[in-house]
């Protein structure tokens, strides 16, 4: 069971927190709270799935927040100013995001540059590009937007499961299948363990790296679409710092920041934990929003220290079990 320990701990933390909140506030444990939790964190959940892939492969993507911002501005201008049908704008922006990610992946692999600095440049570029398009917050009034936000599944108990929440759940599910049940998924883990060994075992690291960053940017684009649906607007300053929230969610979800280990499910729980902290603070009313950042920081520290410890321990107790001299 040891290899599932990080995810189990994360899940246990989430359940314990949820139970504690429910005991304190009688109407906390309701489908309404759960549905809102999913809706409010839909964009974060989607982008965190992509970040999970990147971090497991041993990289990092600092550009995702900017890509979200770019996407919302692009959509607002395309739909409101240029009159594009939203669906066309969606497709175009996703293609742009994917190309952007593939470009970063190619630079990282072929020029052997640290992902940190390449995606940092990507972050500047995407944010700068959205500033150049518009510095105003532009409201999006397309009928499709209104339609999507009014489409909900009513849950017993008054919860309203929105389309974007459902989309996030679908992305989490698809991400889990892609990561855990395909050859591509295994190739994502491989370079996080050892790049040299991965190449020795005949896996082409280059194409895998490009696809990983492509996927991350693509999901950031999708997250941007969700964000614009959620806020019904486009703003170049939206989603500033989301890359940090995503990284925090991934780490709290039990993924090793140095790569090689992690799950999409853990990331999902990590996102929910962050959302739960926000929800608790808004329920409490007297607590201030900055406690969320401090709590996230503490959780980050706890999980990183826990990982450091368990990595050290697992180096010791290695098994010779199961070997029988024939």
């Amino acid at each position, binding site marked *: 069971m040891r290899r599932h320990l990080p995810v189990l701990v994360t899940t246990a933390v989430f359940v314990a927190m949820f139970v504690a909140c429910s005991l304190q506030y009688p109407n906390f444990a309701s489908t309404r709270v759960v549905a809102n939790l999913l809706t409010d964190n839909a964009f974060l959940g989607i982008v965190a799935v992509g970040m999970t892939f990147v971090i497991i492969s041993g990289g990092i993507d600092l550009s995702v927040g900017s890509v979200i911002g770019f996407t919302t501005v692009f959509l607002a201008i395309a739909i409101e100013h240029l009159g594009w049908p939203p669906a066309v704008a969606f497709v175009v922006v996703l293609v742009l995001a994917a190309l952007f990610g593939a470009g970063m992946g190619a630079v990282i692999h072929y020029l052997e540059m640290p992902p940190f600095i390449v995606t940092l440049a990507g972050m500047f570029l995407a944010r700068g590009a959205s*500033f150049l398009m518009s510095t105003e917050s532009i409201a999006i009034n397309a009928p499709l937007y209104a339609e999507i936000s009014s489409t909900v599944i009513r849950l017993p108990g008054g919860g309203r499961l929105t389309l974007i929440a459902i989309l996030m759940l679908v992305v989490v599910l698809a991400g889990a299948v892609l990561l855990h049940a395909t050859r591509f998924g295994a190739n994502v883990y491989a370079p996080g363990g050892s790049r040299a060994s991965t190449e020795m075992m005949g896996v082409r690291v280059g194409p895998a790296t490009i696809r990983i960053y492509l996927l991350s940017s693509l999901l950031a684009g999708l997250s941007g679409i969700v964000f614009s649906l959620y806020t019904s607007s486009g703003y170049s300053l939206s989603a500033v710092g989301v890359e940090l929230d995503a990284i925090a969610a991934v780490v709290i979800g039990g993924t090793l920041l140095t790569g090689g280990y992690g799950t999409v499910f853990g990331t999902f729980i990590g996102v929910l934990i962050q959302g739960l902290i926000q929800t608790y603070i808004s329920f409490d009313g007297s607590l201030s929003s900055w406690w969320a950042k401090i709590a996230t*920081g503490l959780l980050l520290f706890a999980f990183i220290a826990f990982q450091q410890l368990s990595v050290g321990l697992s180096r010791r107790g290695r098994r010779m079990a199961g070997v029988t001299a024939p």
Partner: protein
Amino acid sequence: MTLRQPHSGVPQIIALLVILAVNWIVSPQFFDIRLQDGRLFGSLIDVLNRGAPVALLSIGMVLVIALRGIDLSVGAVMAICGAIAASLADSHSLPVTLAAALGVGLLCGLWNGILVAGLGIQPIVATLILMVAGRGIAQLITEGRIVTFTDPALAWIGGGSIVGVPAPVAITAVMLLVTLLLVRGTALGLMIEATGGNERASTLAGIGTRAMTIAVYVWCSLCAAMAGVIAAADILGADANNAGLWLELDAILAVVIGGTSLFGGRFSISLAVLGALIIQAMNTGILLSGYPPQFNLVVKAVVVMAVLLVQSPKLAGLSAALRRRAR
């Protein structure tokens, strides 16, 4: 085999001169400097003054990077220390205020240093913790408001001047000199360059790398604390949300422009400060030319890529091969 030679600084100086020249073409009054109320004014002075916080950060950051580390938390540390200074300024004397702000900066550095050198956590991961939590701590101190103060003593740090030189510029210059003295006046510089260049060899040569690493992170945070105090003093208040936001990235960029490799080893503090001035000169130039300031980010992205391409070992190998073939 390609080896990086000691820094001449020529490319950086040329870059700065070119940018200044472009600024001059865009705005003919660029080099005009006038003395008003005992303080120098002018675009050039403005570049120095506005560039001071990032220059301060780069002084600490260059040492961290020379040891193959990185400190993502400097922006958050700026926010924390600025918040402390602003909150205490009106109720305490300046020495107490400064001691509190710098003391907390020191603790932040100690935290980072212990995580990196004591627990062996990757620098980028270790400093991420404070980067995330730090802004929350700063908001906790200011209780989410923009804390303003009126104490003229603290305000002087942001807006005052010494023999005409703006206080932030003077403080940064003093800090640069002190750091140069500490690093190049002792054997510390050699130890850092050796450890960043080859940690195993340095350990075998008897260098105590652990204490040195912690000290360097502490110094980096101390620089950030000072930058935070200056930023707060400048606007007569502390904005926990925006103080120092993204400045860690500017500081890293300044170090990289200054020719210090992200892979550690040889470093130059003066050139890192020059790098900070190059960034600020670009910012000011864009402002003067009438382009929207938003242009800054795109230009910065291009500069990051250009500098990295120049530093890329892969490209260096490629160009060497081409040169051989051409011969």
